[in-house]
């Protein structure tokens, strides 16, 4: 069977997590590959989380927060917006394909949008294939 990626999703409690719940209550079906972890705000998301997820075997990481200007904490999502480019830069330097990590704005009323984002991301990561991180680290052990 074809490769099914494991994606970790960090969702902010107020917009995106609620949006994901709305997708549920509206019975909008989407790809089952994302495992959602709830944080209060994208501002809580530390690049460490993303790296941790990748080393623990995630093939992709999805970060969702309120649209800029609509943050429940008024500015939290801007913090994430600022960390994101730096994070992407670092991951690129570690040779990890940019498409594996993605930041999206999904509001509490955008259940459909959340579903679309998940489907699209899953598709892209599926095309990339499994993340090299886990396997490479295991190989290293074998080398010695």
């Amino acid at each position, binding site marked *: 069977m074809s490769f099914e990626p494991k994606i970790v999703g960090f969702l902010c409690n107020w917009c995106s997590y609620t949006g994901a719940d709305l997708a549920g209550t509206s019975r909008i079906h989407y790809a089952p590959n994302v495992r959602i972890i709830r944080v209060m705000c994208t501002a809580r998301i*530390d*690049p*460490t989380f993303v*790296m*941790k997820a*990748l*080393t623990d075997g995630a093939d992709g990481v999805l970060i969702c927060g309120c649209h*800029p200007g609509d943050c429940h904490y008024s*500015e939290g999502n*801007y*913090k994430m*917006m*600022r*960390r*994101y*480019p*730096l*994070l992407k*830069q*670092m991951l690129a*330097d*570690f*040779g*990890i394909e940019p498409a594996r990590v993605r930041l999206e704005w999904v509001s509490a009323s955008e259940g459909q949008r959340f579903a679309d984002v998940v489907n699209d991301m899953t598709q892209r990561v599926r095309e990339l294939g499994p993340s*090299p*991180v886990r396997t*490479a*680290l295991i*190989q*290293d052990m074998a*080398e*010695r």
Partner: protein
Amino acid sequence: MADKLQIAIYWGAGCGGCDVSLLDTNEFILDVAAVADIRLWPIAVDGKYKDLEAMEDGELDLAAFNGAVRNSENEHIARLLRRKSKIMLAYGSCAYMGGIPGLANLTSREKIFETAYLKNASIEWGNGVVPQPESAVNGKTLDLPRFYRRVYRLSAVVDVDYFLPGCPPQPEQVKAALLAVVKGELPPKGSVVGAFEHALCEDCPRTKNEKKIKKFYRPWQVAADPDTCLLEQGVLCAGVATRSGCGVRCPKSGIPCRGCYGPAAGVVDQGAKLASAIASIVDSKDPEEIEGILAGLPDFTGFAYRYGVPASLLQRSYRQ
């Protein structure tokens, strides 16, 4: 002789600076010599691997291993020392986190060989020889240590009791550490010794204010005010994310901290943390502008992980 401390000092993939740092303790080293037998110290004392192999397990009291693990020889000795010594000390940032040699993990073995042996101005063209684990020379086979695909921190190879950070560790800290061993006043296993829990800023004399950064500068681009925090002035300084213990040498002399003492206690990934902190205080809400401001940080990864790629979560490059 039995009442004397039995010590071995070894260098793996390192620059020798750590060995020098021992000598930087000046006459203190003589006191050490007075209370201890230095059974192995390639840079200073004559000694052979076979002598080491000949020792009984646990015969040594302390093995101070500096430098990272880059090849099979490094690992072989690391394992030997571990077996022979009661205490295994990762001495200096290379042993502790991979150090400068660890930066090699951001590239590949092939690239390194290419640069070192094939495309190097200082080598004879055309003979294209790269080190081989084994090579036949008139009927006999010579063998070289195997050059690993990547660099490892010491603790990735053997069980380490204590970590002494620093590139190199500061003499005072070295003394303190050695004294602790001599006196037998040892902290719990796995501790970082010769350094504090908190980050550098606490000990940095520069005044700190709320931080917002519109533009980053390389150190040589600005005449930074000597009394205020370098970061506030747009000069990237790793101090905020670095364990204190060095005595704030760099910032005190006008140079931003490079983070050689590793992450503050409890921080998993020094580079990620630094990135998180630095990006958070970028003063803009516009994606383009943010990109622009962050572009003022060339090779941020190299900076953030200068001493600790092998100790980071991702540990190495995955570029195919």
